[in-house]
């Protein structure tokens, strides 16, 4: 098992190195002087000269790349051209909001998707099955931000059941320890703050969770149908095992493997979807930060965003692969 983890970890390194080369090339390919790009429009000649020397833009390219790599490894992503804040710090401050949203969405997808998919497979060919298949098809074609609009329009604007925007009522004087607002409320015992944060999370989580939900339903259904037809299920039934035992131990357990893979593959979808959802619901995560930085072409932030997300993406994929190896011994041997 350890060898599998190490081997899989070793695979991340060339990918990240390749990415850093691409990112470096990207930075150098941006129109204009790189020092000016980093400093923004209002840079003074003196500041440009200083940055050129500090970043070594007057050095040969390979040397520049090494300098650049060194800065990245030390976690130096530069400062925002718009606000002057260090990029990494801004990310770390906003990241919990995005993670909270993505996790809530994933929870919606998994907790609803697996039972619904299983139900559809059990009632294969019934009206319920057709309804779930049709619904999941519809779920994959609705753009995230459009769904977010609809939910906001119906449940927040017209019915007024849920808040329209934000992460927490600003009138609540909540203590923030981790910046995961729900968790903060639970940790500090401020139940009303936790509840309020949770209520704010409902609509964004449903909006973001719908596409993964639709995918999980479809994969679970297909996978359960596939497994049900396998010889080992027939064998288990033939040797007189109780129905519930066959379903739990043989069908569900084997059927969960592709579902797990699929859930892991949703990371990219969740992250890009989070950008859109955060924008619609005015959630102050890295998504809305990116949104602000695109319109001003704040290159240091954009660069940091790309690197940061790629790193998160690579790590999550690693975790999924390792988790997969734990569940399914065949993967380890492959």
């Amino acid at each position, binding site marked *: 098992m350890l060898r599998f983890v190490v*081997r899989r970890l070793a*695979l991340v390194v*060339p990918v990240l190195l*390749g*990415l850093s080369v*691409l990112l470096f090339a*990207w930075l150098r*390919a941006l*129109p204009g002087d790189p020092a000016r790009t980093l400093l923004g429009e209002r840079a003074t000649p003196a500041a440009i000269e200083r940055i050129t020397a500090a970043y070594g833009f007057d050095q040969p390219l390979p040397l520049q790349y090494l300098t650049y790599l060194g800065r990245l490894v030390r976690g130096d992503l530069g400062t925002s051209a718009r606000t002057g804040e260090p990029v990494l710090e801004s990310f770390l401050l906003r990241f919990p909001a995005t993670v909270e949203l993505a996790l809530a969405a994933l929870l919606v997808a998994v907790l609803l998707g697996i039972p619904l998919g299983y139900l559809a497979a059990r009632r294969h060919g019934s009206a319920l099955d057709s309804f779930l*298949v049709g619904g999941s098809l*519809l779920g994959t*074609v*609705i*753009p*995230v*931000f*459009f769904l977010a*609009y*609809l939910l*906001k*329009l119906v449940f927040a*604007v017209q019915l007024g059941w849920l808040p329209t925007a934000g992460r927490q009522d600003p009138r609540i004087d909540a203590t923030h320890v981790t910046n995961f607002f729900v968790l903060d409320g639970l940790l500090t015992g401020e139940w009303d703050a936790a509840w309020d944060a949770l209520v704010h999370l409902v609509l964004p989580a449903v909006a973001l969770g719908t596409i993964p939900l639709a995918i999980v339903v479809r*994969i679970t259904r*297909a996978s359960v*149908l*596939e*497994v049900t037809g396998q010889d080992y299920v027939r064998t288990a039934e033939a040797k007189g095992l109780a129905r519930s035992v066959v379903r739990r131990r043989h069908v569900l357990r084997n059927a969960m*493997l*592709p579902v797990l*893979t*699929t859930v*892991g*593959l949703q990371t*990219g979808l969740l*992250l*890009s979807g989070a*950008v*859109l959802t955060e*924008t619609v619901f005015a959630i102050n995560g890295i998504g809305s930060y*990116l*949104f602000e930085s*695109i*319109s001003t*072409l704040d*290159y240091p932030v*954009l660069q940091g*965003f*790309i690197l940061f*997300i*790629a790193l998160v*993406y*690579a790590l999550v*994929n690693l975790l*999924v*692969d390792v988790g*997969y190896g734990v569940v*399914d011994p*065949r*993967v380890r041997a*492959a």
Partner: protein
Amino acid sequence: MSGVVLPPSSGPVGPSSGDPVPGLPSALVPDAAAADERGTSLWRGAWRRLRRDPAAIVGAVVVLAFVLVALLAPVIAPYAPAGAQWANQVTPSSVPGPSDEHLLGLDSFGSDLFTQLVYGARQSLVIGVVSTAIGLSFGAALGLLAGAFGGWVDTLVMRVVDIMLSIPSLLLAVSIAALVGPSPTALMIAIGAAQVPIFARLLRGSLLSQRRADYVLAASSLGLRHRTVVMSHLLPNSLSPVIVQATLVLATAIIEVAALSYLGLGDPNPTVAEWGRMLVRAQDRLSTDPHLALLPGACIAVTALGFTLLGEALRESLDPTFRR
């Protein structure tokens, strides 16, 4: 039949990929080998199955309608797009509703809403098709290179593909738009580039699963050159999953166009007729004029649904072992 063992380094694989994935039931993996053994009659059989599938017909009708509207936009639309000539009728709190002159009323810039929706179809079709063409041609070229040569070429190409896969498509779009500036061209390149790894993996997997088929052995033992074997025997027999994927990807592309222009990465002109753009503008008027958001949103969803239905029906009809 798909007894090809892939190198362990093939990284994360989507259920839509053609690679035989360990642990993934074969029903989720389009199995080209099974379907393609029937040669040319495969397509005739597929056509027969497609005509009897109601989902395929609904999908085809939606796609056809969308393409026709896009092509005939100047004929169908009563006005020129992005006109904004009735801006004086729009107040900050309301837009004029349907009338005799304007079938669906005006949008928030004072352009005819129906005209904007019709031209929006054109924008979506152009960007969707061009980006998919980019993704398909580059991806297929890489996949062909990897699948036909194998060895170190395969390893190198697939490593590059792995790196591309590790970048979420949104990031690609952001970085490309930063390079060339926000424009429809940036959108096409970005969406196409994000598809390249998908097509590359798919074609490679499909080629690999065919490489040990009897007809390839026969062709090689007849003394045909490697290039001839690949181009005239292997490739035509490995294409069907790629065609299916292209149809499905068109649905995604149309949604992505809307999402990216929503983020401000598309055409910088705010009055341009583009469904995602129209949705953004509608946000301010959500409580007073929700139809400004509902109509373009519905257009995106219906079009994407059409391509998805058609693509899935195509997949099933080309692969009889694929169970819905």
